[in-house]
């Protein structure tokens, strides 16, 4: 064996090929089946898509690096489930390009934070976390409430996501900017289109408390409020297995 290696060491190209082959095996064996084995991602026919406003909010979440302190992945451990809610299913992030499961809980998990607090709580918390939670070490994001949301390229955002597999329709793509307005301005003529396209369960509210303006705060709070609410599957799953797996 060491004799063969002596020969290999004399051949640069051979060595390069050997490295590529030996190193490629592991990743291939683990990743490729995830695309082909059907059971990897559960069925959830009621799974909704992110609205354009929620997409924009998700992008703000990414931009600000919220994922560095917050996970969105409740493990199948008893204490995780009792603290945060039913454990996360693969299907819940099947439209997440990229996923935001996170790796560190400097702050609590957010996978099921949707509906846990009022919009006003989130706005106050994001403006200055210590106003609502005195011990908090989370940064404040005051400028979000002042910054108008950029909506002119939202159609492009949905179109790009369709290219990677998210089933947005032509109509959704064409109306992306209008839907973003409508979702945060319930009294505007654009509001009706949002629920027509994205389902009645969609939240249509002035998330930032300013019904006449569309800000980045609207988008981020809309996103936080939909976390864990895109499908009912995890809640049913937990009911049928009586609590978490050990």
């Amino acid at each position, binding site marked *: 064996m060491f004799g063969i290696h002596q020969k290999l060491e004399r051949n640069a190209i051979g060595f390069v090929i050997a490295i590529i082959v030996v190193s490629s095996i*592991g990743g291939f*064996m683990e990743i490729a089946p995830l695309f082909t084995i059907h059971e990897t*991602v559960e069925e959830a026919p009621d799974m909704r898509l992110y609205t354009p406003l929620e997409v924009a909010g998700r992008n703000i979440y990414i*931009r600000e*690096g919220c994922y560095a302190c917050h996970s969105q992945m409740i493990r199948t451990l008893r204490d995780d489930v009792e603290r945060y809610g039913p454990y996360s299913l693969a299907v819940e992030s*099947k439209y997440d390009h990229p996923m935001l499961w996170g790796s560190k809980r400097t702050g609590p998990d957010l996978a099921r934070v949707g509906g846990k607090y009022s919009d006003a709580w989130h706005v106050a918390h994001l403006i200055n976390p210590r106003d609502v939670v005195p011990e908090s070490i989370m940064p404040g994001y005051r400028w979000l409430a002042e910054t108008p949301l950029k909506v002119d390229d939202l159609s492009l955002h949905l179109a790009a996501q369709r290219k990677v597999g998210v089933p947005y329709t032509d109509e959704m793509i064409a109306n992306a900017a209008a839907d973003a307005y409508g979702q945060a301005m319930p009294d505007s003529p654009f509001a009706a289109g949002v629920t027509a396209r994205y389902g009645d369960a969609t939240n249509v509210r002035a998330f930032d408390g300013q019904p006449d303006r569309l800000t980045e705060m609207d988008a981020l709070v809309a996103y936080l409020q939909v976390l864990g609410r895109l499908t009912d599957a995890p809640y049913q799953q937990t009911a049928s297995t009586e609590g978490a797996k050990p």
Partner: protein
Amino acid sequence: MISELTRGERRLALAVLTAVAILGLALAVAGRGDILAVHGGLIMASAVVLMFFVISGYYAPEPGEERFAQYYDTPTKAGVVLAMIWAVIGMGVGDWVAWLLVYPEMTFDAAWASFGRLRPVHTSGVIFGFGGNALIATSFHVLQRTSRARLPDQFSPWFVLIGYNLFCLLAASGYLLGITQSKEYAEPEWYADLWLVVVWVVYFSIYLRTLMRRQEPHIYVANWYYMAFILVVAILHIVNNLAVPISFGSAKSYSAFAGVQDAMTQWWYGHNAVAFFLTAGFLGMMYYYLPKRAGRPVFSYRMGILGFWGITFMYMWAGSHHLHYTALPQWVQTLGMTFSVMLIVPSWLAAANALLTLNGAWDKVRDDATLRFMMLAVVFYGLSTFEGSFMSIRAVNSLSHYTDWTVGHVHAGALGWVALITFGSIYAVVPWIWKQPSMYSNKLVEAHFWLSLAGTLIYVFAMWNSGIIQGLMWRTYSEGGTLAYSFIDSLVAMRPYYIARAIGGGFFAVGAVIGLYNVWMTIRQASAERAEAPDAPVVPALARSLQAGE
């Protein structure tokens, strides 16, 4: 520097810079109205500044034939200095964000100053800025010595070094502006990723072209590791960054993968960035500079082979241990855990091989802080690979995951192993290439050593404590069967450890500043000497001596 390039290479440099400037301009124009325009402008400005630089030296006399009798070390020199500058930036920002967790108000309501934007500046600054530059610089140095061949030309090493630093600059400035893909350690957006691929292809071609012309029949073990670093990082980078930009006029893209497949791809990448960027590359460094400095041959050739192929094969399976108890199918979790545990064997083979190499040179370790840096690095390498295997076990991971324990583990590796082996190698290589008997101040090397050791220990112990306390508090139940502590309870309990960590990190960062100063003064000393007595061309003595381990 320009005088070292041939006339043809100067023309090539101008052509390449013109192309880059045009690309930058195109991005700036296409991206008007988007933050992409800022980066387009930055790319263009960098290229134009460099063009002026090339033009200013364009008519300098061409380098003579005698250059072929010498190794080409100027890119290594520049790379070492850049690595030290990035070390100060990356570690400085790291300590700053550590303090942000103690004093969260210190963001002054500025977007760019918040934790989430600064943290990737820290991680990319140290991994890619400091680590990457050190790897490129030392790989050029080691490659030439162990092959007894000069780099193939004068242009491509500069292209790699400067192009790579442009990537680092785009990355760091991008985070501050809010440009990120959010994939940890792969945050830069599509255009920066594409640029890195170009740089990397040229980097690999340098390696291959030099090896093709080598005078040594065997490829030395350090080069195996450097090659694995270059090749596998290319594979990881390309696959994990596959994405669709929303338009060529926008910085934003959407990953080709979603959900569980994305998570697996990301942590396959993330863990192997640790393996092939932060381990393989630095093992290459260790396999050259440690035996050289100790004046001893590598202990065992066979251990070298087994360690190398074990690491190359097994690491690629281990990434899924980042996803225990998640929605990732359990069979993948189990595979990841199994390989992670087995990884201890090749890791300890490499560590043992290095420590046994030092047998017979322990007096040098005692007296020479540079060698001591390397020795301690190997010890931390052994410790953190053991800890890593341990933490990959599902039951342990259920406690450690999501806590500061992970952060402590990473820093045991990053400070204890990566940074210490790099500082040791830099203190070894700087006097060699600047032709000095030693560093400007050995006392400062000694001071840097103790600051690093103290800083690492404080850091790691603080994070062990906070991580384990956090993990236990999250899972403790009261008599009545309910969770005993709220999340905020655990947060409050962390505060003293966060302070300790920031102090430990501060020690380490101050050490890096001292290191930069020491390198700088050594260079000044060398250039003062050269001003007095012009250098006669010499064939490096090292070239004729056999390398370590043969």
